[in-house]
């Protein structure tokens, strides 16, 4: 009885656009959904440092190096405050990291693709951050307060990253024939994985139901994907690159672009761990974590010694 009343009050708040805060009552499924979604988002920021980190040492100018470093530093910062938001749901960062490393938690599949040329730094910024922004702008209105506030902060930086990525692509598309070829190749490789970042079609998306009712998710996968495609097609045209989809065409009646079918077999293969870099990314993360164990232990031991000294004094 009690729970039904609480659930009604909870839904009334959601319907009235009142944010849910950490100490408020919430259904267990709502908490679990958010723990999963926010930690997955945090893990994505952190794992995403790897494919971009792959090019810091080879950035072709000092300016480009600084811009890329600053960007990756932002991603680490996003990971940090997303873990903080996730911790308000009653699980520690260590527990979330454990879930990542034992493959109970996922991160965005896009980071399981390799970054092979400098143009990939452009494509990742333009397409991957571009797709992430469409999703995150929508999530600024999500019903859970700490997540919503984290998104507001993150969106400001992400739109900057997207412009920087596009700048790299534009520059290369107008550069030497080799540079243009690298830019087109990067677009070819990242286009389909980017539009699959929005997840399966609404009809095949098991997590959409309650998430929409509870306003965790404000728009569906297909709606968000369409938004991203509509705004990106023109950007490609402006810099003279071709989106690798022969079925892509403007639909006057709908006021949207029609596009070809995505390769869902590939999507699930990568989600299930068989993308080109799944093992590499996870092993890299585990190795850094294990290599740092003695450092974390030392910091704890030092802190304990200091505390003891204070007590004696």
């Amino acid at each position: 009885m009690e729970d039904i009343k609480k659930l009604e009050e909870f839904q009334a708040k959601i319907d009235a656009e009142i944010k849910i805060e950490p100490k408020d009552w919430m259904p267990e499924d709502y908490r679990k959904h958010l723990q999963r979604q926010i930690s997955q988002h945090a893990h994505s920021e952190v794992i995403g440092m790897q494919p971009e980190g792959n090019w810091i040492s080879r950035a072709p100018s000092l300016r480009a190096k600084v811009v890329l470093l600053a960007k990756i530093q932002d991603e680490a910062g996003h990971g940090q405050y997303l873990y903080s938001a996730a911790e308000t749901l009653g699980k520690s960062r260590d527990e979330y990291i454990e879930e990542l490393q034992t493959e109970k938690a996922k991160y965005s599949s896009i980071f399981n693709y390799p970054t092979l040329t400098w143009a990939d730094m452009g494509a990742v910024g333009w397409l991957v951050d571009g797709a992430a922004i469409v999703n995150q702008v929508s999530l600024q209105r999500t019903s859970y307060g700490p997540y919503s506030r984290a998104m507001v902060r993150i969106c400001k930086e992400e739109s900057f990253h997207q412009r920087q990525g596009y700048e790299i692509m534009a520059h290369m598309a107008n550069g030497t024939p080799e540079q243009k070829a690298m830019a087109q190749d990067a677009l070819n490789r990242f286009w389909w994985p980017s539009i699959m970042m929005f997840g399966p079609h609404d009809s095949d998306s098991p997590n959409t139901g309650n998430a929409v009712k509870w306003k965790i998710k404000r728009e569906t996968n297909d709606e968000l994907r369409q938004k991203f495609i509509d705004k990106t097609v023109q950007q490609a045209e402006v810099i003279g690159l071709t989106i690798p989809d022969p079925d892509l065409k403007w639909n006057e009646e709908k006021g949207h672009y029609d596009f070809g079918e995505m390769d869902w077999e590939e999507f699930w293969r990568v989600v299930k761990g068989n993308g080109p870099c799944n093992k590499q990314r996870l092993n890299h993360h585990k190795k850094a974590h294990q290599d740092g164990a003695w450092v974390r232990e030392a910091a704890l031991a030092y802190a304990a010694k200091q505390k003891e000294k204070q007590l004696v004094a």
Partner: protein
Amino acid sequence: MEKKDALINYCLRLGDSSLILGQRMAEWCSNGPILEEDIAMTNLALDLIGQARTMLTYAGEIEGKGRTEDDLAYKREEREYYNTLLSERPNGHFGDTVVRNFLHSAFFYHLYQALKNSSDEMIAAHAAKSIKEVTYHLRHSAEWLVRLGDGTSESHNKVQESLNNLWEFTGDLFEMNEVDELLIKEGIAVDLNSIKKDWDKTVNDVLERATLSRPEDEYMQTGRLDAMHSEYLGHLIAEMQFLQRAYPTAKW
């Protein structure tokens, strides 16, 4: 030697040391022991590469042949690099990096304190700006050194070993030649003998807090002034310069 050539060389020494150490710090990205350290170490890399850009740009201006910061960073060979031997040491484990950065940051800290009074306005301004960053770098590495030195017995032994291994590269920091001699007379450069005792004090104080023993000054490696490096630098530079070398006509 002309003053102009001496000044170019002096700027390259400063710029190259920052660049190489910055490139090393950037290698830590996504490899740190905790996320906060990834952020901190990326920050150090950003500061250092920023410092390098200022000095390399200035070196190019003085030279007057139209060479930019990127021409100097990407189109010189290793025998034209004047960075400190310490800056090019590989990252090793976290303790190796902390010790290297501590010894180097303490050097930069006292160097820039003194260079704030350089008669060369650009160098004085560069020192005044960099000192803020380097103060943080020194605090960051010193605080970690204390934690690792006075943490567990494992961490203590590890960083003591790092310190023993890196010590032979500290002599190179303070070596001088006719470039220094000429520029000291002009009030541009700093007599490195005069900052050595400050460096010693900083190092001794922190090592004491860290319960570490200062290694004996036995044989010191040398080479910075003649652009004589370890084998490590060539690999670092080859990687850094790859795109500029492979596509010489491309603009990025």
